[in-house]
């Protein structure tokens, strides 16, 4: 008897939940992108460890390079940390942008994307929303690197304004760069391939640069490479913003590469995402 009554109640609750009611208009483009951005933030909230995976390497580099090579490279560990930290910031944020591609690759192979694609919202909003959420990831990884730097004795000459400006610059750069990795994510089968290919692109870019050492002692050909390396341009702009030697021209120069990447790989990402799966 009791069970029977309960059964009927469940039926009634479902029936009540299904009652026709005025249905709102589906979310517009901006609101759909923001909603997917919120989803990305929830994922960071539920899996904060993902964020730490990405900053472990830069933190290790900061500690190792500062105390091992700092004295030899810059005369003192303190002086070297002042030089190194902006470079490490760039390195960690740039590697985090590979992670955007990686999460998209794992995410997209799941059934939930079928649901999104069968809903009456702009078909690209899941991808753009995820990328928007990733900006928070970039910001958090910058903050972690800054925190480690301050613990080790780093000082930003331009203070809080310089720090905020650098974080914004890095966010813009990484958001643009991430289109390369979202393209990769949509082309290859497994997340680990995205990671491997990402590292293959980024390792030479971060080492053949001014992240770790002043290029003045490098061979001439390598100095030319560094002069054109987008990562090096970003490091120069970031250093400038933090030590007060920056200029609008340096910042603008560092943003050319992400703009070009967005113009080329943005549409490619969109086209690949729209492809049938």
């Amino acid at each position, binding site marked *: 008897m009791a069970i029977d009554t309960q059964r009927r109640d469940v039926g009634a609750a479902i029936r009540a939940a299904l009652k026709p009611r005025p249905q*709102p208009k589906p979310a517009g483009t901006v609101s759909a992108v923001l909603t997917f951005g919120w989803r990305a933030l929830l994922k960071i909230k539920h899996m904060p460890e993902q964020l730490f995976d990405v900053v472990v390497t830069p933190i290790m580099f900061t500690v190792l390079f500062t105390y091992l090579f700092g004295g030899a490279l810059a005369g003192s560990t303190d002086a070297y940390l002042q030089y190194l930290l902006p470079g490490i910031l760039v390195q960690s944020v740039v590697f985090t942008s590979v992670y955007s591609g990686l999460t998209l690759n794992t995410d997209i192979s*799941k059934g939930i994307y079928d649901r999104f*694609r069968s809903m009456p919202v702009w078909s690209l909003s899941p991808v753009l929303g995820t990328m928007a959420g990733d900006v928070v990831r970039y910001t958090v990884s910058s903050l972690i690197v800054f925190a480690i730097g301050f613990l080790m004795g780093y000082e930003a000459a331009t203070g809080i304004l310089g720090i905020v400006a650098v974080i914004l610059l890095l966010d813009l750069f990484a958001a643009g760069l991430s289109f390369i990795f979202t393209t990769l994510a949509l082309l290859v089968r497994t997340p680990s391939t995205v990671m491997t290919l990402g590292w293959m692109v980024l390792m030479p870019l971060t080492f053949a640069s001014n992240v770790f050492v002043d290029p003045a002692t490098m061979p001439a050909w390598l100095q030319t490479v560094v002069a054109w390396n987008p990562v090096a341009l970003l490091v120069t702009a970031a250093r400038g913003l933090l030590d007060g030697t920056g200029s609008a021209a340096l910042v603008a120069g560092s943003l050319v590469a992400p703009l070009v990447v967005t113009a080329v790989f943005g549409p490619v990402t969109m086209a690949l995402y729209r492809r049938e799966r």
Partner: protein
Amino acid sequence: MIAGASTPAVETVGLRKTFGAKHAVDGIDLSIRRGSIFGLLGPNGAGKTTTVRLLATLLKPTAGTARVLGHDVAREPEAVRRRVSLTGQFASVDEDLTGRENLVLIARLLGHGGRDARARADELLAAFDLDDAAAKQVRTYSGGMRRRLDIAASLVTTPDLLFLDEPTTGLDPRSRNQVWEIVRLLVDNGTTVLLTTQYLEEADQLAERIAVIDHGRVIAEGTSATLKASVGTGVLHVRLADPADREAARALLAAELGGPIHLDADPAALTATVPDPARAAAAIAATGAAGIRVTDFSLGQPSLDEVFFALTGHPAEPSPDDESAAATAAGRS
């Protein structure tokens, strides 16, 4: 209800989808009455999922036409998407989020404001008996809970047509019954349901009409009664105390039931197609009278295999590459 309530919920003519050289859907004609439950029955790789994905506008037909609620899926996908919901074969909910966050996400995408979206999520969680798990990540849910959440997510705004792709595959009997109950309530409410299944029993329990598909084609279509009439009402499984009696039992059952008797791999077991349940009872009584001891017998519905055997003359062989795997490969390569 625009576009006339008299047009079928789904109408396809010569619907075809090829992935490379593979004909996943090879000319399917369907007509599904509004407010009914329609079952697509077939083994893995038969083309069920591809058909659903075509109708839900996730894939574009290679040839043929499909109209869903009066709208052409290729020309008016937006109009279709506004009025259908899809519960895919693989969990179409986000495992990293909580049950509540999943429903709020869908509600916001469908245009509910923040407070309204949360209220709707809570209402559905309570109705589907998920309120206790609302704040837990979906990855911790049991199969049955996940399915209920998946279906709830499809009902945030009540769809005119719901696609359920193998809704009970892998569920325990209790969860399966819950899903069936929900589907029945939905249809009482006026929603049309297209479900795919590998189980004849499921199609029989729920569907008004059933299409049996194999290799991307409809090989039989009709009510469950007409389908079963072409297969036999049921199957009698008998297990003997002594395997040595099997030959005698076979002869006796063949005489009583008048049909072919299948000798199972189990040396003490036999299976017979039964035209009429009343004769099965008589046949069991006759074995007892003849001194053959029966330890076990059951009268069941024909399995998908038996339906296939009766309709096609060959057993239902799942193709080595599962259809969804083939679809993924085609999209990614």
